[in-house]
């Protein structure tokens, strides 16, 4: 409650600049834009400047002169390999996450959105999708780490050694299960609105006209949902591709995927004999994520057409 009061107090300050005693709205408007200045300055300084610096720094060397060598490093086999690793892990976990997440949405269809089950699933999905990060890594170390509960159980009770061929939890394959663990909930969050917007009347119309349940899904339901599904899939891909915390906590060193390679480039002065490689990697990453997210919003807008 105190937070709200504080907010109120602050909220009062901005429109003051709009000229409280001015009688006509028009004359007030000329000053109202001043209220936009603090926020614009903030966004410029902490969003625009860092983004430009991140992307731009790849074009400069340590002395500040323009160079192509860092960006050319994106073609280096080592760098290409990490991009490939990132891409396949993201694609695999996005596809699995999208399919499983869509199944959960389907299972929840027809449940009261205000009911206890939906509210619990929504809250749980929000936590795991958005705030898991490092904590998911710990949960998986406790579960399938070298001394994890499941590892020990399988080894002692069934004589099955999960890590017979080496410890893979701290390598790229080890990312798959934790990533699916946050991809599925994100799918539930993003896809549920689309599924919930399917009108039961369509199904009734289909049945009245002699259609079957299966026919409804193959001819109406799935075609109508396909754009939303594809959009969510793209979002999941971008999400896994940009994810850093879980991987960083699992693999404390090495640069198996792009975000970890950025870490290596930031924490040590030179990687692959180049300075400012972090900038070039950031550029490569933002191009991929940017294209995927642009496609996402394009398809999402297309998908939203029938929802309203």
């Amino acid at each position, binding site marked *: 409650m105190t*937070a*709200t009061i*504080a907010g*109120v107090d*602050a*909220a*009062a300050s901005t*429109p*003051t600049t*709009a000229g*409280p*005693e001015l009688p006509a709205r028009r004359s007030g408007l000329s000053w109202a834009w001043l*209220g936009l200045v*603090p*926020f614009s300055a903030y*966004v410029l300084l*902490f*969003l625009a400047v*860092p*983004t430009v610096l991140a*992307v731009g720094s790849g074009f400069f060397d340590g002395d500040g002169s323009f160079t192509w060598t860092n960006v050319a490093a994106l073609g280096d086999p080592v760098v290409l390999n990490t991009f490939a690793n990132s891409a396949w892990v993201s694609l695999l976990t996005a596809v699995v996450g999208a399919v499983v997440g869509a199944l959960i949405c*389907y*299972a929840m*269809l*027809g*449940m009261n959105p205000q009911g206890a089950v939906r*509210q619990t699933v*929504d*809250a749980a999905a929000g936590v*795991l999708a*958005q705030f*898991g*990060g*490092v*904590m998911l890594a*710990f*949960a998986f*170390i*406790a*579960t399938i*780490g070298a*001394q994890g*509960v*499941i590892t020990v159980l399988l080894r002692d009770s069934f004589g099955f050694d999960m890590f017979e061929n080496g410890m893979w939890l701290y390598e790229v394959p080890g990312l798959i299960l934790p990533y699916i*663990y946050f991809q*599925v909930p994100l799918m539930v969050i993003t896809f549920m609105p689309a599924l919930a917007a399917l009108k*039961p009347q369509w199904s009734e119309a289909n*049945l009245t006209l002699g259609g079957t349940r299966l026919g409804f899904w193959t001819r109406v*339901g799935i075609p109508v949902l396909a754009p939303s599904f594809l959009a969510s899939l793209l979002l999941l891909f971008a999400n896994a*591709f940009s994810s850093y*915390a879980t991987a*960083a906590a699992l693999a*404390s060193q090495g640069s198996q995927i792009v975000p970890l390679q*950025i870490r290596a480039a*930031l*924490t040590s002065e030179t990687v692959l004999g180049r300075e400012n490689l972090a*900038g070039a990697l950031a550029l490569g*990453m*933002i191009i991929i*994520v940017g294209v995927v997210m642009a496609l996402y919003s394009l398809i999402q807008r297309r998908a939203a057409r029938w929802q309203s």
Partner: protein
Amino acid sequence: MNRLAPSRATRWIIGILVGAFFAIPLISTFLYTLRTADGGASFERWAALLDPAASATIKPIWTGLGNSLILALVTVVIVLLLLAPTMILVNLRFPRLRPIFEFTVLLPISIPAIVLVVGLTPLYLQIGRTLGTGTWTLAFAYGVTVLPFAYRSIQASIDAADLRTLSEAARSLGASWPVVVWKVLAPNLRQGLLSASLISIAVVLGEFTIASLLNRQVFQTAMVVVGKQDAYAPAIFTLLALLFCFLLLLIIGRAARGNRKATS
């Protein structure tokens, strides 16, 4: 009855299978924290958290948690004092700026934190020189990462309340702009402001990328540091923090439900 809904059996099968996948790591983590040296089970590791003698190794976690709470507070202040007033202003006086405003505040979704941190590094070198290297300065960066979440919560409330009519009514009754915002608009947006604050707290408590690469000690970075010596304490804090965030989101969900009932 919704004819699209799956049968009871289908619902249960999906629920049990997926529920198991999500429950196993959490239950395993809990059992892991109970494990004792001789192979038994007890709550001694949980008790040790509050025991000052045994807690030397986990001290960084408490320090980090304290820093994270300060950061959460400053971030909430940024949301309430900077974002919320600007949103009211844009909605009331500059409706034509709404699309560009929305694009800007949703932009952090598309910019990975790991990319942002590359650009924040030189920026924070400057901030370190002028404002000092205190952890609280991280809140400026966190304010940006919470923008999309906070915006959605507040905008939902703005859409539900008719700001224009409310403010015009108050103005025509002689209220000054500060009074309009404080006594008329803000109480109507209470729901959104509360949700935005709670979700900001959740984001800040879970943030790792920026803090870790800018070398600031927060809750999540401390867990990684401690985890290298003692794997059990971070597991306990993981469970507690996930539970805490879950409860925060549950409150937000319930608050939104109450809001919808009130407006309909």
